[in-house]
């Protein structure tokens, strides 16, 4: 019995072993076959977008990033170490154009992009105080941040001292080298505004129907970015000191809180000051309210002052609708008019218009170039890792839609050779008409005086 039992067990064991071996061989063969026929798993690089997605500035930037990513991927993606990497974007809403939200919310979005979404490079940034707070976190995450729209030189000056940096800033390259700035900063705006004001003065003095633009009223929203150009108190800045030396007189200057709704008192004082030119500095919707009220106001002798100045929202295609057409004759900077800053500009604007039904704003142009610059830098560096990407970005020269871009030693954009930042446009019957840029010898005859 014992012998028979052992023999039976032996047979069972052998059968079991054979079955197991067959299963293993079959499974291995299937896996090997699958591996052989399987397409290679695509490699991805994730670009994190830190944007106020509920606002036009964020939405346009997001759409432009998507356009750039689609185009780059359609051309094989980014090649690093002979491997094709596809780009993908992940976005977090900073809500930073709602002035009532604390800065922390913007920083939280950045943290989520890095820690949860695993972004490898960050693009975005609109509100200066939010970007300043975000920049302080970059060294901790060792991640590159390309700022597309905030405009105060604080972080640039932290990267590296430069002649334009305000005194008292302590440069700290190790901590801030991750930051790159694609937008013009608040102080750098001034020369363009002065040049235009002088041209406007020459034009107004030789053409009928224009007010006395040498009497200037300054209106600035109370935000970090206006500290440089508007000054504190308002009117006390290099910009206006230079203008006074060039024959202008500041007859009224005031700051106004963000989201101001009623400008009656300001307008009455501007009217009493007999200003012929209002230089308006705004980025939010308060600028639309101001323009509406300026247009409705009964100006002495029916002579409206000219309004011009930097207004982020003022150059957006929606601004005309927002003001119910009151923007007629308002001159804005920067202006995303359909002008060939480079051979790439008009094709991009046309493609964006075809896709989304409106003219892209400055944030869209900057973001579009930002994605391409990052892609090019990654292929040069053969990596998305910051320690390799930073030297590549520092030495890059890229012809984008806004101009030929390279970064300064403080990681700011190379002014003055970005044509988009030299362009002034005037609202006329729903269209933003190009009227002057810094290379023009004089103002275009297309300019119109304020309606009486």
């Amino acid at each position, binding site marked *: 019995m014992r012998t028979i039992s052992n023999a039976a067990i032996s047979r069972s064991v052998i059968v079991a072993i054979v079955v197991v071996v067959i299963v293993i061989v079959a499974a291995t063969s299937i896996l090997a076959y699958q591996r052989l026929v399987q397409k290679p798993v695509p490699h991805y690089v994730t670009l994190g977008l830190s944007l106020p997605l509920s606002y036009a500035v964020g939405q346009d930037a997001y759409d432009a990033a998507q356009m750039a990513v689609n185009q780059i991927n359609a051309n094989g993606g980014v090649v690093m170490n002979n491997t094709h990497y596809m780009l993908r974007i992940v976005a977090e809403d900073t809500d930073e154009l*709602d002035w009532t939200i604390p800065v922390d919310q913007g920083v939280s979005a950045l943290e989520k992009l890095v820690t949860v979404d695993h972004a490898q490079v960050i693009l975005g940034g609109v509100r200066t105080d939010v970007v300043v707070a975000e920049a302080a976190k970059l060294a901790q995450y060792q991640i590159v941040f390309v700022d597309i729209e905030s405009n105060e030189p604080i972080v640039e000056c932290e990267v590296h001292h430069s002649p334009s940096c305000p005194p008292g800033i302590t440069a700290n390259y190790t901590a801030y080298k991750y930051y790159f700035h694609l937008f013009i900063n608040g102080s750098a705006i001034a020369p363009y505004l002065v040049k235009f004001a002088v041209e406007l003065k020459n034009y107004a003095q030789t053409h009928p129907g224009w007010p006395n633009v040498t009497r200037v009223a300054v209106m600035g929203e109370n935000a970090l970015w206006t500290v440089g150009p508007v000054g504190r108190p308002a009117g006390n800045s290099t910009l206006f000191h230079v203008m006074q030396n060039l024959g202008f007189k500041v007859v009224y200057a005031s700051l106004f809180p963000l989201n101001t709704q009623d400008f009656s008192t300001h307008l009455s004082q501007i009217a009493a000051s007999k200003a012929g030119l209002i230089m308006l500095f705004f980025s939010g919707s308060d600028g639309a309210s101001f323009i509406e009220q300026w247009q409705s106001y009964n100006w002495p002798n029916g002579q409206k002052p000219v309004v011009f100045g930097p207004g982020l929202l003022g150059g957006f295609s929606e601004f005309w609708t927002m003001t119910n057409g009151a923007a007629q004759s308002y001159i804005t900077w920067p202006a995303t008019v359909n002008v060939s800053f480079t051979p790439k500009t008009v094709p991009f604007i046309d493609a964006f218009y075809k896709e989304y039904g409106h003219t892209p704003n400055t944030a869209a142009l900057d973001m579009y170039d930002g994605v391409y610059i990052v892609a090019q830098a990654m292929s040069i560096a053969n990596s998305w890792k910051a320690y390799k990407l930073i030297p590549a970005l520092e030495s890059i020269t890229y012809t984008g839609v806004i101009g030929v871009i390279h970064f300064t030693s403080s990681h700011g954009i190379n002014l003055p050779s970005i044509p988009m930042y030299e362009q002034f446009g005037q609202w006329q019957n729903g269209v933003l008409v190009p009227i002057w840029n810094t290379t023009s010898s004089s103002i275009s005859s297309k300019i119109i005086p304020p309606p009486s």
Partner: protein
Amino acid sequence: MTYVSFLSFFVLGLTLGIVYVLLSEGFALLYGVAGVLNGSYGALYMVVGYSTFLFFFYFKLGILASIFASLLLVAFLSYLIQKYIADERNTLDALFLTLAFAFVLQYLVSFLQCSSAFRSSCQYPAFVPVFINGSTTFLGVSIFNQYLVADGITIAILLALWVVLSKTKIGKAIRAVSQDKLAASLVGINPMRVILLTSVISAVMAGVSSVFLTSYQTLDPTIGWNIITLAFAIVVIGGLGSLKGQILASFILAYARVYVLLFYNPLLADFVSLALLIVVLLVRPQGIFGKEVV
């Protein structure tokens, strides 16, 4: 202060003061009749702005139809708030509940504004278009016609309110309920219905002020908080339940604001109403015309 700037101060303060009366009247009326400090008053103001935007831009109603539809909506909303949230509660409970409801409305509007249904409203801030264009010069000072009409409507509403309260049966019922609910019910008045009606009138007043004022700003789900703060300050400074106190406080705050805007620093304009509120609460807690509670 030059003569020209004095005229600006006088005219702009007068215009703004009348607008402040309109803005706070609904809030004061509901407290006077029902003892309800409606914490959602500012949120109702905000909802009217958004709904006018919605009816006008999405449903393509004309501006007047959009305003009318918005006022109906806010009247209905106020009816629901009074009936299901604030009714039969003491002042403090009602205040907290309506404040909580204001947050609900704020977050709901915030969510809906960028939902897939209204995605294009994310493209730029919502706004109510100016529907009365132009300006009129009065004593050398230019005033927006829309403000002038708002002033006219405020005066008309105050007169109508005075006539209704003093000359009509429903007005007498409202006054009776404001004095003593129990006694009013003993003479056949239904206090519940009177309070509901007052609540609806109050909301419509908030709505009317909203359609006139929100044209001059872009909409934001949080705009109601400044409004309720201002209404609360006016009512407390004037004395809770006192119409003449409320009118006087409206002008005090309006002139203080215009003074700061014209002659001091625009960045401190919003600070004035709160500073005055604190001073009045410290010096005369019952307000200028309020009765001292013993």
